[in-house]
């Protein structure tokens, strides 16, 4: 940029003088960030000591002395991890009992589901299309995993492992969104009865543990249906996940709606738009866009919550891992299962969380 000073003298914009990396700067960095004061130094040393004693042992147990390949229990070393069963069962953890010939359907379901994330990333694509995709996603997953239309119908009991986790997580996420929007609007409306019913529902569900709802669905929901009608346990669980997580989403969306300046609504009203048009064209597009990061972290919560269906005997990824370690051959290995499950969830949730944080930063940047 080269502005001309009006007195005639040019104003030069310069780059800052480059500073080079040197030993001095490293020492300075260490001094400032690790040994700033005597208290700091003590803490630094303590942490180094702790890591120094624990880390090598842990790494040794996990990797260096661990058994990775072999045929059976006999090949395992007694005082280190034994990863053989994990390798043997890895397909089961991913696909569950899904018929082997149809596993391409699971793969494409994963692809279709994961595609929603980059879709949230691009700003070019109109919001209508993104929302359309998200609402269409459950149908797509349904057809792929459960069958119908062109595909062979697959029994719900064939859903297990990661496939089930994924199925529950994504479908509950997508379907709870519209419910939560209605709840959020209901909670904010001026009509008192409507509002109190919504508030009551939200507060009540927030106060009660999900697993009691899951038990409700698994034990007594059938009793409330007309005789002879029975709903598959998977759908009942899905139903619970949808209506429970909608409550948390409703709070997120309510916050986002409140964050839309009141002036936006007034401007729309002033032009003669009614309530629904104002909400649909002015408020919701802004609120939804701003709530994407919060919704992503809500999704992480929901994804983690799907493990609870294990308590009902549904074998999602954690249940599947547990079941295989009950196999006569692998009885007695206690730590490997939980470690694998936590590693899986950590990798999945952490990456999604980072992605959400990135989107949030970007939204904040564009606001200024």
């Amino acid at each position: 940029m080269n502005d001309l000073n009006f007195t005639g003298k040019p104003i030069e914009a310069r780059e800052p003088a480059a500073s080079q990396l040197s030993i001095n700067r490293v020492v300075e960095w260490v001094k400032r960030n690790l040994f700033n004061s005597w208290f700091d130094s003590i803490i630094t040393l303590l942490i180094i000591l702790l890591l120094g004693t624990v880390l090598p042992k842990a790494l040794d147990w996990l990797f260096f002395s661990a058994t990775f390949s072999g045929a059976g229990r006999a090949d395992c070393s007694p005082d280190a991890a034994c990863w053989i069963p994990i390798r043997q069962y890895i397909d089961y953890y991913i696909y569950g009992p899904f018929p082997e010939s149809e596993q391409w359907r699971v793969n494409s379901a994963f692809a279709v589901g994961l595609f929603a994330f980059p879709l949230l990333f691009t700003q070019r694509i109109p919001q209508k299309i993104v929302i359309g995709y998200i609402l269409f996603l459950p149908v797509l997953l349904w057809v792929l995993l459960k069958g119908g239309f062109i595909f062979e119908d697959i029994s719900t009991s064939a859903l297990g492992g990661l496939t089930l986790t994924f199925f529950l997580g994504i479908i509950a996420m997508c379907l709870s969104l519209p419910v939560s929007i209605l709840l959020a609007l209901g909670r904010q409306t001026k009509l008192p009865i409507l509002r109190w019913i919504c508030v009551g529902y939200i507060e009540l569900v927030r106060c009660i543990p999900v697993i009691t709802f899951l038990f409700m669905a698994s034990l007594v929901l059938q009793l409330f249906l007309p005789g002879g009608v029975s709903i598959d346990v998977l759908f009942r669980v899905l139903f619970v996940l949808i209506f429970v997580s909608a409550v948390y989403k409703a709070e997120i969306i309510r916050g986002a709606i409140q964050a839309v300046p009141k002036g936006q609504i007034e401007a729309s009203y002033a032009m003669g738009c009614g309530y629904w048009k104002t909400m649909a064209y002015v408020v919701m597009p802004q609120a939804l866009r701003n709530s994407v990061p919060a919704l992503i972290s809500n999704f992480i919560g929901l994804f983690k919550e799907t493990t609870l269906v294990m308590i009902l005997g549904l074998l999602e990824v954690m249940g599947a891992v547990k079941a295989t370690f009950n196999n006569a051959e692998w009885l007695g290995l206690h730590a490997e299962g939980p470690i694998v499950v936590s590693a899986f969830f950590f990798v999945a949730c952490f990456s999604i969380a980072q992605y959400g944080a990135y989107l949030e930063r970007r939204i904040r940047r564009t606001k200024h």
Partner: protein
Amino acid sequence: MSKQTVVQLDRVNKWYGKYHALRDIDLAVAKGETIVICGPSGSGKSTLIRCLNNLEQHDEGGIKICDITISENVKDIEKIRRHTGMVFQHFNLFPHMTVLDNCTFGLRHVLGMPVSQANEVARDLLNKVKIGDQEQKYPGQLSGGQQQRVAIARALTMSPDIMLFDEPTSALDPEMISEVLEIMRSLSKDGMTMICVTHEMGFAKEFADRIVFMEAGSVIEISPPEEFFVKPKTERAKVFLDQILAH
């Protein structure tokens, strides 16, 4: 006033809870008039102007806009809002739409006009506020002055009979105020009925037909600018003018 009366307020009262925000307001505005409302902060200027298109509901008295009385009837209120255009202090442009979409919003969703026709109308008005070349930008990419001009154009798309302005320049940097006032001047010249809440006394002096001075929810003075600036009837108005013109 021989001309047709388009805004008629009759002993309008409004309360916020116990707080008496508007007290017995009487006011009649003729077609083509430019009215400037001024008064100290909290005196109820915004409340008054927002009652005119029912963004706030008044509690007592009658308000009649273009022969429609404001009531509980939803259809009537929609009609009144179509007869009035409003410009806000903070522009309130829709940040997720382009400038053009902002301007066609009402046309499309209220009047149900097809997109191409709406675009034409909007382009016309954007050119009128001298911003035709920015139509594909988003509000966030414009300066405050430009945004406010878009907001005016947006309000004009619905071809309102009456324009309401609530401090249209007070959120602007000094440099940008003049460009917005410019547009308001030309509107006034073209014979638009305008009701403006503003502290821009220059504008008031030059273009207002009458100045309404408010204090604590009441209108305490209505005079033409010549009179108001030279010898205000009330002591309060004098003090106010002194303060506002001091610096």
